[in-house]
């Protein structure tokens, strides 16, 4: 029966099941949801970076056509602030500064886009018309947007109760050992850089619909979220005080997140609260401009890194000082990004024995900054991989050989770094070699000469990187300040006739989970992918879950499913033993057996298909009632034992036009170790997408504030997103070492592209500019910047 079916299990490039609905316009996104009697919300946002609100006069606005209600913070009494999910402690052990993040501004606005009031009307347009009629009396105050500037003595204060705008001053590693390493070093290399601020720009803007059932008291929030259970927890418990049993959060089809849809946002609380207050559903959908000024931004670090090397190029010590911009308020996971997702990654793929990093997080009058694809790890990778290139150049080492010399040996795993992490597996030499070969590294000088013959500057850049994902062991992150656990939940529901519904706490918003997860079930239980359906994104259906970010869905969510399937097989065996009158120990299960998923009495031809077992479980006429309950459904909570550690090698080749300074990416090679590959096509797509975002950061994207705190790059007209013709063919290959601590051996592939690629691109740009004696070009490496270098000007 199974022999004629195409192989759809682990390792097959099964076409994405979800694409039929997405590509034919039949996805159901939050903005497609319309509830009977729905009203529309429009949010009045601050045009000032910093101002005192003297008064908000809604008299005229309230009388405008269609207006249902106008609310300010004065109306939302008894409502908590938006909570932060991670608490960092200062060097001295005291907790970080955690100023209140009100849902609607209380007395002051602190960034352009800060919500001040909400207008609810019959139509969106009427709500906006009325919003424009609200009369604000505000007193503009001086603002500070720059990371370093905010720490300067005279900088305006973002929060009156946070002196000097310092959120925390944190450190990790062994300072004394690191200082000692520098004292005996033959070479001391210093590199300073700013990691540019980015706007995530998911294709679908955020949207939220609140609904309230006056008969049951149940609240429902439909929201563009990567983690509906987390939103239920944060909003229910901390902001609106609604018990979980009365709050359902649904995140249906979501059009991209990249981190920006992890967090609990004010608008979610506003529509949920207003729907109950008004007794009618309330919808809010952001436009693109609002997205620019209210979605959490990414990156924005100012760093200084120092590397100590001995005379042969062996790394002895690494010292890092980073200032990280938090924006005006602490977004949900913001404090952990420049600490535990960043500084712990500073060992990279190298066996540097001593590392010490200090991180200061600062408040500024800007949109909150939080995790964005890669979150902390791109910042660490960029710093380290640029530093290694700078070191190679300064000290006269070959940049590939310098890396190779310092790699953690393949035999050294598990490897304990000086910055808390213990890597389980990896093979950096193989990914390096494979990438060098694919990119024809050896033939580069000939290509460079060919470009030169056409008057162009050609450069090649490499990055050998590692990241930590599959987050995360709950006990570990708890000890580091996380206010939540980071396990995942999977339920396997085998229906009476053998088809399967999987409930998962992970959330798919572009990743293809409906396919990949079905492949896991196909592989383990022998059920065709078409008969496996994945349900996610609804707290009313899925038992619990922590959602999708940090490349955790397969490593943690998939492992939970795997554990649940173990239980299904175990129970199935007992039912099979009963039906075939054999002992449980003698029952074997083979997903690729003659009946598909097949239970067999070992050494005999007596078999039962999984569907026969499930039928017996739900129609239990002949069933071991004494020892088992009917039904065939199992749930597992999986808490990972460690992070997973994907890594690899990225190589970029660029050509620069001397006359204009324009950089053209010519080709890009990625050889990644993402652990076991479930669907090679999806992995390739994930890596390509990540590389596109990494190239975007390296060459194009830049979120710019002016000195008064206005957001200059507030639309696609000024914020340069990468387009297809900015990119080049991305060659994606994988080289697998298995994760040693999760049952699937998987590591994760969602972020590697965005983590490994920016330094590869900038290293290539700097290489192309060899003859001009520069050792660095800040991201994004725009044409005018490069033109200034080539033409020796400072413009």
């Amino acid at each position, binding site marked *: 029966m199974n022999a004629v079916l195409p192989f759809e299990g682990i390792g097959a490039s099964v076409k994405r099941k979800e694409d039929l609905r997405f590509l034919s316009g039949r996805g159901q996104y939050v903005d497609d949801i319309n509830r009977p009697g729905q009203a529309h919300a429009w949010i009045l946002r601050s045009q000032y970076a910093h101002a005192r609100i003297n008064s908000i006069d809604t008299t005229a606005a309230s009388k405008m056509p269609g207006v249902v209600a106008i609310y300010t913070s004065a109306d939302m009494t008894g409502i908590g602030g938006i909570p932060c999910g991670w608490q960092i402690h200062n060097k001295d052990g005291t907790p970080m500064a955690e100023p209140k993040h009100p849902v609607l501004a209380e007395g002051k606005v602190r960034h352009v886009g800060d919500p001040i009031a909400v207008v609810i009307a019959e139509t969106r*347009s009427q709500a*906006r*018309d009325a919003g*424009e009629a609200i009369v604000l009396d505000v007193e503009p105050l001086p603002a500070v947007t720059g990371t370093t500037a905010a720490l300067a003595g005279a900088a305006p204060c973002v929060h009156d109760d946070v002196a000097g705008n310092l959120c925390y001053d944190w450190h990790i590693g062994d300072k004394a050992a690191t200082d000692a390493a520098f004292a005996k070093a033959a070479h001391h290399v210093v590199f300073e850089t700013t990691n540019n601020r980015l706007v995530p720009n998911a294709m679908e803007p955020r949207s939220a619909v609140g609904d309230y059932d006056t008969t049951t008291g149940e609240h429902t929030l439909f929201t563009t979220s990567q983690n509906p259970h987390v939103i239920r927890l944060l909003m229910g418990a901390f902001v609106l005080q609604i018990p979980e049993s009365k709050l359902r959060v649904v995140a249906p089809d979501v059009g991209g997140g990249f981190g920006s849809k992890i967090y609990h946002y004010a608008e979610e609380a506003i529509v949920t609260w207003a729907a109950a207050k008004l007794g009618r559903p309330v919808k809010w959908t952001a436009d693109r*401009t609002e997205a620019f000024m209210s979605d959490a931004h990414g990156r924005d670090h100012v760093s200084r890194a120092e590397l100590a090397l001995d005379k042969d190029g062996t790394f002895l010590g690494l010292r890092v000082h980073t200032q990280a911009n938090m924006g005006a308020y602490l977004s949900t996971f913001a404090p952990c990004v420049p600490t535990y997702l960043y500084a712990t990654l500073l060992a990279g793929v190298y066996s540097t024995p001593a590392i010490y990093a200090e991180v200061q997080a600062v408040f500024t009058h800007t949109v909150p900054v939080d995790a964005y694809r890669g979150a902390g790890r791109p910042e660490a990778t960029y710093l380290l991989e640029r530093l290694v290139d700078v070191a190679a150049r300064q000290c006269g080492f070959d940049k590939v050989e310098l890396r190779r010399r310092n790699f953690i040996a393949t035999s050294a795993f598990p490897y304990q770094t000086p910055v808390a992490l213990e890597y389980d597996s990896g093979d950096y030499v193989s990914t390096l070699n494979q990438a060098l070969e694919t990119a024809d590294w050896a033939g580069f000088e000939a290509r460079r000469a060919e470009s030169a013959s056409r008057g162009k500057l050609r450069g090649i850049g490499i990055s050998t990187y590692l990241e930590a994902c599959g987050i995360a062991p709950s006990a570990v992150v708890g000890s580091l300040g996380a206010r939540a656990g980071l396990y995942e939940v999977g339920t396997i529901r085998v229906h009476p006739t053998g088809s399967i519904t999987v409930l998962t706490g992970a959330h798919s918003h572009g990743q293809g989970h409906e396919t990949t997860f079905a492949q896991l079930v196909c592989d383990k239980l022998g059920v065709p992918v078409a008969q496996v359906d994945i349900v996610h994104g609804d707290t009313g259906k899925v038992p619990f879950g922590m959602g999708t970010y940090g490349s955790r869905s397969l490593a943690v969510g998939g492992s939970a499913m795997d554990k649940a399937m173990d239980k299904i097989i175990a129970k199935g065996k007992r039912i099979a033993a009963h039906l075939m009158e054999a002992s449980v120990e003698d029952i074997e299960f083979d997903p690729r057996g003659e009946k598909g998923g097949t239970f067999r009495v070992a050494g005999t031809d007596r078999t039962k298909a999984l569907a026969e077992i499930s039928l017996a479980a739900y129609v239990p006429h002949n069933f071991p009632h004494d020892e088992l309950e009917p039904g065939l459904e199992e749930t597992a909570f999986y808490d990972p034992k460690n992070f997973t550690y994907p890594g690899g090698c990225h190589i970029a080749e660029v050509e620069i036009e001397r*006359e*204009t300074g*324009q950089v053209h990416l010519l080709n890009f090679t990625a050889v990644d170790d993402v652990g076991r590959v479930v669907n090679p096509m999806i992995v390739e797509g994930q890596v390509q997408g990540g590389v596109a975002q990494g190239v975007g950061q390296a060459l*194009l994207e*830049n979120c*710019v504030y002016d000195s008064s705190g206005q957001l*200059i*790059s507030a639309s*696609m*007209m*000024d*914020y*340069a*997103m990468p*387009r297809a013709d*900015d990119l080049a063919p991305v060659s994606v290959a994988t080289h697998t070492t298995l994760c040693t601590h999760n049952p699937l051996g998987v590591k994760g592939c969602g972020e590697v592209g965005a983590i490994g690629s920016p330094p590869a691109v900038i290293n290539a740009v700097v290489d192309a500019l060899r003859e001009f004696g520069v050792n660095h070009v800040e991201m994004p490496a*725009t*044409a*005018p910047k490069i*033109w*200034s270098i080539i*033409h020796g*000007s400072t*413009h």
Partner: protein
Amino acid sequence: MYDFTYTKPSSVADATKLLAADPDAKFISGGQTLLPALKHRLNKPTTVVDLTGIGEMRGIRREGNTLVIGALTKHVEVETSAEVKAAIPALAQMAAHIGDTQVRNRGTLGGSVSNNDPAADYPAAVLGLGATVVTSKREIPADEFFLGMFTTALETDELLVAIKFPIPEKAGYAKMRNPASRYVMAGAFVSKGPQGIRVAINGAGPCVFRQGEMEAALAGSWSPEAVAGVKQNPEGMNGDIHGSAEYRAHLVTVMAKRAVASAG
């Protein structure tokens, strides 16, 4: 978008009458500029007067040494017209690189030229070829048409009906695109023909302008090298997060050089 009324007249006379009676009404052609402005609530017209029903504003025809292109001609039509490709290939090529496919399928010559966005393409061709703008009231030489940023000689109730392009001996266009908007950072349209030697620069300044020194240099010798030595004064050039005035001034020379090279 604020509410407005919508009308679709079928003649130039009817359309201009509407605007004469109501100065807060607004023409719409392809809507590729006006619609985004309306959506952002940057514009609040009482009435939107849709020009696309007016037959006399359509069509591409050759009249002796002149190519006459109706204001409603879409970018894609200019791009693919055999008539344009034969007479002024640089113009067809320019049209092929305006915005993206969707924009080219709706945006019009008349809309672009009457809008006179400093970063738009067509104004450079109109000025660089020394074309004549035919309106509902008169004919305006290109040199008198583009008055400043988003400002032209058109009066409120005056319609751009067609543009008469003299067919040049040689013409070429080169531009560098803004990495974000993909509009023009700096561009140059050069031509040699009945209107003499002309160099029009777009993108770099607040309004398309003629580069006299480059015209003089090309009159001496029609070659990329001739313009390569002419430096644009950065004073008055646009400077923003995408490039300083100095950078744009530098690009003017580079683009002029490339335009001449492409013109042969």
